[in-house]
């Protein structure tokens, strides 16, 4: 039985004269125990999907099931934990009170819920804030509390909307660790994110949603092109004649003091370059093969499927490219782009 299943799930919002299709005909299966990354630009319909799964929004057509139960049945949520994009709770309750309430609503006794609340506050690093009221919490603390309340009922499926949002790098690492811990316990994790580096690190499968339609879905290792496309080689004390030979073969070279960065477009040249540098007595500091990253794949999907915006002119780019770039630019912050390339490089070098 699938942990999450949707069949032709759609959501339309009817205005006075217009209809907005937030989600169109979503067919999706998520197997038990896997981590599924749900990607898409802003406004693609990711949050709409998650809220449909949790019964907060009602579908216009189609259906969705959590472990075989239709999402309209409150019992479907017995095994589910949900973390919204912007966690919030009644301002006058303390963290411990909120988690105890959530525990009791998940079916725990009062004492069981209190124990569970204390355990989760410790696990999410909020033990000091146990008696703080909601309106005194920072954004990061609210994010952690949102995760804690999702974990209260020991869910079989965790549905998280942008769980890394608002967290610092240490927090994002901790969040990834918790997700992996939950997967190790057999929990299915279904989360949406804009931070592709995190998705690429931990997800078994990803789905890409564009304008309410699922355009790609599958295992990361299958949908990403895993052929070695090129490499970066960092060496020191590279003689000029060897550098010239490397440039003649079509590679790029950049010098940073004593260090030289060789950028190969073709993975087949790596062995040759390494041989030359070894023969010349240069010291190889690092070899980083380039593979197509999730970010590159995602941007390509957005570029291919973005229609030309009307009346756009000036940049010399086609409307399709500029539109895709604009859409993709809303997805990643510049430092996230750099971070994703660096982490991709680190991962490839292992």
């Amino acid at each position, binding site marked *: 039985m699938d942990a999450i299943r949707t069949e032709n799930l759609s959501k339309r919002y009817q205005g006075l004269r217009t209809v907005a299709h937030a989600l169109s005909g979503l067919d999706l299966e998520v197997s038990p125990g896997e981590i599924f990354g749900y990607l898409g630009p802003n406004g693609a319909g990711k949050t709409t999907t998650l809220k449909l799964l949790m019964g*907060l929004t009602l579908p216009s057509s189609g259906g969705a099931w959590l472990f075989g139960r239709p999402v309209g049945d409150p019992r479907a949520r017995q095994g589910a934990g949900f973390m919204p994009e*912007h966690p919030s709770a*009644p301002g*006058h309750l303390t963290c411990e*009170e909120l988690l105890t309430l959530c525990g009791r609503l*998940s079916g*725990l006794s009062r004492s069981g819920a209190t124990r569970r609340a204390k355990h989760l506050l410790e696990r999410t690093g909020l033990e000091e804030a146990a008696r703080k009221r909601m309106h005194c919490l920072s954004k990061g603390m609210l994010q952690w509390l949102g995760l804690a309340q999702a974990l209260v009922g*020991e869910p079989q499926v965790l549905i998280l909307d942008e769980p890394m949002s608002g967290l610092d790098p240490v927090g994002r690492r901790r969040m990834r660790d918790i997700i992996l811990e939950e997967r190790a316990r057999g929990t299915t994790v279904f989360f949406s994110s804009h931070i592709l580096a995190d998705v690429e690190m931990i997800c078994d499968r990803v789905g890409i949603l564009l304008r309410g339609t699922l355009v790609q879905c599958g295992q990361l290792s299958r949908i990403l092109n895993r052929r070695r496309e090129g490499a970066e080689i960092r060496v020191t004390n590279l003689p000029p004649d060897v550098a010239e030979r490397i440039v003649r073969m079509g590679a790029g070279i950049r010098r940073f003091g004593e260090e030289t960065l060789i950028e190969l477009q073709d993975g087949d040249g790596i062995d040759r370059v390494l041989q030359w540098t070894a023969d010349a007595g240069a010291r190889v500091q690092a070899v980083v093969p380039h593979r197509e990253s999730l970010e590159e794949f995602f941007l390509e999907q957005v570029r291919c499927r973005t229609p030309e915006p009307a009346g756009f002119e000036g940049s010399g780019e086609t409307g399709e490219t500029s539109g895709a770039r604009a859409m993709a630019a809303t997805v990643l912050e510049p430092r996230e782009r750099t971070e994703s390339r660096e982490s991709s490089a680190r991962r490839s070098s292992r």
Partner: protein
Amino acid sequence: MNGRSLKIKKGRVGRVGAIAECTFLESVRDRTLSVPVLLAGLMIGGALFTRTLSLGQQAKLLQDFGLAGICFFSDVLVILAVTATLARGVDRGTVFPILTRPVPRGELILGKYGGVLAVVVLNIVAVLAGLHVALFLIGAGGSSGILWAAALSVVEVAVVGSLAVLFSVTCSPVVAMVFAGLMMFIGHATADVRELAARIGEPWAQTIGELFYYTLPNLEIFDVRAAAVHGYPIDSGYLIWAFLYGILYAAVVLWVAIWIFGRRDLA
């Protein structure tokens, strides 16, 4: 804790009770909700200093002011509390931690309603106690009529609260507050509207008057202040009928609210 080892206790009453308990805590901690109570207390306190104006009827004046304060400010309190916890909760998403549990939406409504009602009843009891202290200070005593009048105020609060719930699940917080407030005033005038419509003499006016009379809440039937203050006996049959009317009316309105809420997009 590891594995799926948690013991699950099932129970609608338990869930509603848990929501009611937290709603009670929220409302008690919300300082803005103490304003109506303070105002009711001020009314009673003010009446203590009316000896020269009361022409020897200070006890009656105090009882009248006290019961009027209990009635009016309790209605205001229940409207504020319901819109704060429910309308604002839906608007800001603070009810999502509850609704993403295996909790039917109706149980959220009942839990919130029960919690708010508990706060208002507590406040009525507190103000009633204050009234009795004030009566004692001027050498007068309470009566069973005052207690029955306060009890019927609780039923009125239950009816007004149910209307506040209905508007909270259909409108924004401010609009819900305004509509519930309007119903609170209209509810004390439904008999007058019916009589006015009858005097017009047109069939359509009579129909509208009857429609208003039977669909809008008749809050005047919960007002037995005059009898309580003047020491007239209150018919037990009337009391039973008023209680049943109030409970039934509130139940029907809550059922409609739950039906609407169950079919609404919340996000």
